[in-house]
């Protein structure tokens, strides 16, 4: 089985979010970048398929040279090869077009992407890659098994979960649940050394337009101070929620 894991290079979850150039660009100054958490759960599940079922695992990212440390980290965790599509990730559709080309050229059986990146939260790349490549698709995937050419995938639905079967090729939008948080791997020294020698191929993008443009960013308006209520007067909280906040 050939697996492709799509990796988004995103600011660390605790980063301060600021913008520059008249609030049109994310300010990367002093920001630590990491593998998108939703992708990392998928990458770890891919490692399981590699170790237990002999799958090969490639990782891919759309971005400039500055994203290579994130791909190297994925190699250090255990991916076999990395591909960097040398282009700015303009929008979800553009990224999906680039990934679809890699999926088709590489003949991948299983494509694992995160359900969304934690920066732009578009939540569209996995579905679009599936649609563009004519693959089956399961979103918000929290469990995945593959036997022969049939996958059994569990997805989170509102208020529960749902399990489906589908033939490969399959694209999933993954998230926590594919593996547990405690299963995530921190690259060890051997992995880091080996990652230096593994192939990281840089390819040029295919012609593709974008369909959306992020024209501006705004920060939420500053919030007022919390109103504290005495623990001996919970009735006051009820009154505030009813009369002032109109929430109950």
């Amino acid at each position, binding site marked *: 089985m050939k697996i492709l894991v799509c990796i988004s290079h995103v600011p660390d*979850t*605790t980063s301060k*979010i600021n*913008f520059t150039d008249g609030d049109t660009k994310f300010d990367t100054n002093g920001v630590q970048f990491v593998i998108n*958490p939703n992708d990392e759960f998928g990458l770890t599940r891919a490692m399981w398929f590699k170790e237990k079922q002999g799958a090969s695992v490639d990782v891919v990212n759309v971005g400039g040279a500055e994203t290579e440390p994130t791909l190297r980290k994925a190699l250090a965790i255990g991916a076999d090869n990395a591909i960097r599509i040398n282009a700015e990730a303009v929008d*979800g*559709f553009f990224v999906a077009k680039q990934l679809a080309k890699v999926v088709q050229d590489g003949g991948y059986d299983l494509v694992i992407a995160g359900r969304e990146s934690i*920066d*732009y*939260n*578009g*939540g*569209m790349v*996995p*579905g*679009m890659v*599936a649609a563009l490549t004519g693959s089956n*698709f399961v*979103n918000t995937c929290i469990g995945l098994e593959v036997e022969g050419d049939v996958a*059994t995938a569990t997805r*989170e*639905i*509102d*208020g529960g*979960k*749902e*399990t*489906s*079967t*589908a*033939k490969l090729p399959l694209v999933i939008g993954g*998230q*926590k*649940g594919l593996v547990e*948080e405690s299963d995530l791997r921190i690259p060890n020294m051997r992995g880091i050394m080996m990652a230096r020698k593994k192939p990281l191929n840089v390819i040029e993008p295919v012609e593709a337009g*974008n*369909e*959306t*443009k*992020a*024209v501006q*960013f*705004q*920060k*939420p308006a500053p*919030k007022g101070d*919390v*109103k*504290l209520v*005495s*623990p001996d007067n*919970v009735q006051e*909280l*009820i009154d*505030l*929620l*009813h009369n002032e*906040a109109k*929430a*109950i």
Partner: protein
Amino acid sequence: MSVLVYTESEGGKFKKAALEVASYAKEIANMLGTTVTAVSIHGGDSNELGAYGVDKVLEVKNDKLSTFNAKAYADTLKQAAEKEDAKVVVVSSSADSKFLAPLLAVNLNAGYASNVVALPEGASPFKVKRTAFTNKAFNITEITTDVKVIGLSNNAFGLKENSAAAVAEAFEPSLAEEDFNVNVVSVDKATDKVSIADAEIVVSGGRGLKGPENWGMIEDLADVLGAATACSKPVSDMGWRPHGEHVGQTGKPVASNLYIAVGVSGAIQHLAGINASKVKVVINNDPEAPFFKAADYGIVGDAFEVVPKLIEKLKEFKSNNA
């Protein structure tokens, strides 16, 4: 030309999110000087949609579509959009809508903006405000394609009553075999509980509750409020509560009207996931807990004393306001 809206149902009744997307679609239709057409797949009473501004309802009844299937539903919506010459298609932020929206967007060669929280600023250029950086910022996105797909964030717009005729019309999409290549084999869903996605109020517990045996009071508090229960990440990682209850950046997003956090410290990842909620309340014995900076109302106190008192007072409040 019309604005197309996908109105979801559950157990033969329209979901609140369906009425919200209908209300939103009506405002866009007014802006564009056109009408609203809803697509209802094994849905509720179409007259109900009229009260939220829907002019026409395409009613789909097809045994193959009696349970959700993203590809087949996306294909149905595509055909409806083409029949109605829709330039704007509105869907909700339910798990199902987020599943089908990217497939629909590719089918229609449409640009898609998810997590939209406001009406477009204008028809041309077509710019919408959406949340980004997991609720730490907003992003104004311009959709540049002829056809546009909008995913509206839950509870972002609210319900707006309108009276329209809601003329029902049977609609039979032509479906291909390949639409059904993903086959549902089992569904595990609590039907007696309100889901986090649909809830107006969410009550959430954190590590401060000390153990899974103490969740009874969280459930009691949720019951009296008709709320869904949720938990923080450490709580689900330790196996105190099921993963489906984990809310936060890597868990479920919450955009409820009221979010009550009990014994949750308020790590940045947790706050990011729940920040879209309108009113936030925290009960925690540590006045330094970061949640107090994010909350609207707070009680510094022992949850084991405060919550039972709160439940008792809420019961009185409910019986007086019934």
